[in-house]
């Protein structure tokens, strides 16, 4: 009898029981898993339902209204539904809208890849046990720490100054970085790339997670550094590359603070990044409904890009935990 059999492993015991018990066991494990799963994600779930859901839904609703922060009180609902008017105006009547779209696309297509490449390269460089390497890591991460403060803005403007700026001195040119519409975006891109510390640290953590035994085994088998990189490092790093790619893209589209304090969208709106324009519409023109509509369009675009990356991930991301 199965019940009196002393089982060696739990799973074996389960298999030996009668089919009907198996069904209930499976079902209760299913329910058990559900419970456990929801228990584990409950912190996020609670936080989301309590604090995030309402604001997100209201912003969606507001994009179909003419909600004007000062004039109409959100709770007294004395604003009007205007259907798709906001969206129509955005796409057809707003000359600054498309400028900001162009600026943002340009920014993302340069800043994101450059940041990731630098981050990975430097992470590999700093993935050693040499003495003092932790100082280097701090130095390479330092720019990110400086972040988006007033001081950074002033300093960045000094460095890219036309007459006394460091950049012009090094490159030997006389470019008006902030005034010339052709080059202004590079001040923001370079700022983003300079602050590659965050993805770098994440890559570093990923590199550190690769068991050294794999490298040792490969070295014993005669693999050289490049082969080790290709066959061990890169595949095992793909989950992290994937993560960084997704996150940097999302953040790239949402870049606000740097643009706000360094260029303010100038000149000629060439650096008017989308979130900056959203802020402008929301807090300067008080057109919160319109700004909400703009935000949801951005969300859709980001979601689309992210979905593409996710869809392709099947083909190039390798998870150790999936291997049986």
């Amino acid at each position, binding site marked *: 009898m199965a019940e009196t059999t002393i089982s060696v492993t739990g799973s074996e015991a389960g298999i030996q029981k009668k089919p009907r018990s198996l069904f209930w066991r499976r079902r209760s494990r299913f329910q058990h898993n559900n419970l456990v799963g929801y228990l584990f994600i409950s912190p996020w779930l609670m936080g989301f339902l309590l604090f995030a859901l309402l604001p997100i839904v209201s912003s969606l609703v507001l994009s179909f209204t003419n909600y004007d*922060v*000062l004039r109409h009180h*959100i709770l007294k609902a004395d604003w009007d539904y205007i259907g798709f008017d906001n969206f129509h105006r955005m796409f057809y009547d707003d000359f600054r809208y498309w400028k900001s779209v162009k600026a943002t696309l340009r920014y993302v297509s340069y800043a994101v890849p450059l940041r990731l490449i630098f981050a990975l390269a430097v992470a590999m460089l700093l993935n050693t046990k040499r003495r003092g390497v932790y100082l280097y890591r701090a130095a390479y991460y330092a720019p990110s720490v400086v972040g988006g403060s007033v001081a950074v803005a002033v300093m960045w403007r000094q460095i890219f100054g036309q007459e006394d700026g460091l950049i012009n001195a090094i490159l030997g040119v006389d470019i008006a970085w*902030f*005034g010339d519409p052709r080059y202004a975006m590079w001040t923001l891109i370079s700022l983003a790339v300079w602050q590659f510390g965050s993805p770098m640290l994440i890559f570093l953590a990923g590199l550190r997670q690769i068991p050294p035994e794999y490298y040792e085994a490969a070295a014993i088998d005669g693999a050289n550094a490049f082969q080790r990189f290709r066959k061990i490092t890169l595949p095992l790093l793909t989950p992290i590359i994937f993560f960084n790619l997704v996150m940097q893209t999302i953040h790239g589209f949402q870049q606000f603070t740097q643009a706000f*304090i360094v260029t303010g969208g100038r000149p000629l709106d060439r650096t008017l990044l989308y979130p900056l324009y959203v802020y*402008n519409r929301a807090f300067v*023109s*008080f057109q919160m409904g319109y700004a909400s509509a703009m935000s949801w369009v951005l969300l859709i675009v980001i979601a689309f890009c992210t979905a593409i990356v996710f869809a392709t991930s099947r083909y190039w991301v390798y998870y150790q935990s999936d291997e049986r």
Partner: protein
Amino acid sequence: MKSGKALIILVLLVALLAPATAAYGKQEKVELHITWWGSQTRHDKTIAAIELFETQNPNIDVIYEFSGWGDYWTLMTTKASGDNLPDVMQHDYAFMYEWYSRDLLMPLDEFIADGTINLADVPPALLESGQIDGKQYGISLGTNSQAMMLDLDAFEKAGVELPSPQWTWTEFEETCLKLHEALDIWCFGGTLEDEALWKSLYLGYGEWVFAEDNKSLGYDSDEHIVEFLNMILRLMDKGALPTEAEWAEYEDQGPENNPIVTGKAAMAYHWSNQVVAVANAAGEGRHFKLWHLPRPEGGQPENYVKPSMFFAIPASAKHPKEAAMLIDFFTNSLEANEILAAERGVPISTVVWEHLYESADPVQQEIFDFLARVTEDSSPVPPPDPAGWAEIRDNLYEPLFIDPVLYGEISPEEGAAAFREEANLVLSRNE
């Protein structure tokens, strides 16, 4: 596990701490809330003045909040959305009308009438700017006017005579070129593209940029602004003015960065209450004079006396009477104004004004004198900017009109026409 327990303990700790913090500020006295924007200097001075007020009024507890200019309106807008506005708030000419038109401000007339706010020593002209539709919504915290700052040493070195205070834009152009040729620097640090100059230009022609009903632009012909822009372009071409591209890195960098400080320009344009910062940045041994704005040929003065900023009382204020007392204190108290040292502009009360003049330093005295000169020779104060102005200024005036013109992308006529069309559209939505 240990970490799990630790977590629970911590959460409990926070839950216990929070009520303590939340219980902040629950007292029996009258709690007056005030907000303002500024820099560290202004914060320190204002706080000191407020503490003086509290010692003189022991039953009032003033709770203040402040920020830099960049964040102030985001902060106040957020507060407005939650009905959390203070009792006294610092306000700006550009936004007054927007807030007024949304019924967010309280008229102050009853406090003036019953003497809580004593305006006996204030010339009526300095109060006009805070009046909308015949009621007083803001009390000016300091008088201001647009100034041309002249570097006397540069003029001397170039051998150029000082122009008359009633100089015209034609004379400005001539002076500019002379200075540039003699010294090979920019005659003027800036591009003259400030929207205040556009407004002043039309004042010089006896017009106002907005129609009386605020539903459209107030002038019919773009000729004047086109001519003005052409003058700027001419000067840029000759190198007497920086080009837009060159000027971009100086923009928004604060008065200390103006080329007049480093000697790269002989003239500058500032509001009079910014002059102190510039002069201080320039250091010792510099000689500046404040001059009227140039005016059109045979035209009116372009200057007007403007309030630098106001104190206003939001309609939702819980303690309007005490709020009015605080405003009166800032306006009339001699000791308070000694502390505040005219940092927000020249005080509007003549009594206070005279009192401060004696102990003011030379730069301050020059500002005081300049304002006295301007008061004699100025246009009447124009009405406050209408609703929709923020939209026009940020989304139309520069991006659609001035920037493309000064970058040479479109002609001044095209720019003016496009601007007119769009601005009228925005204004037509006003009630």
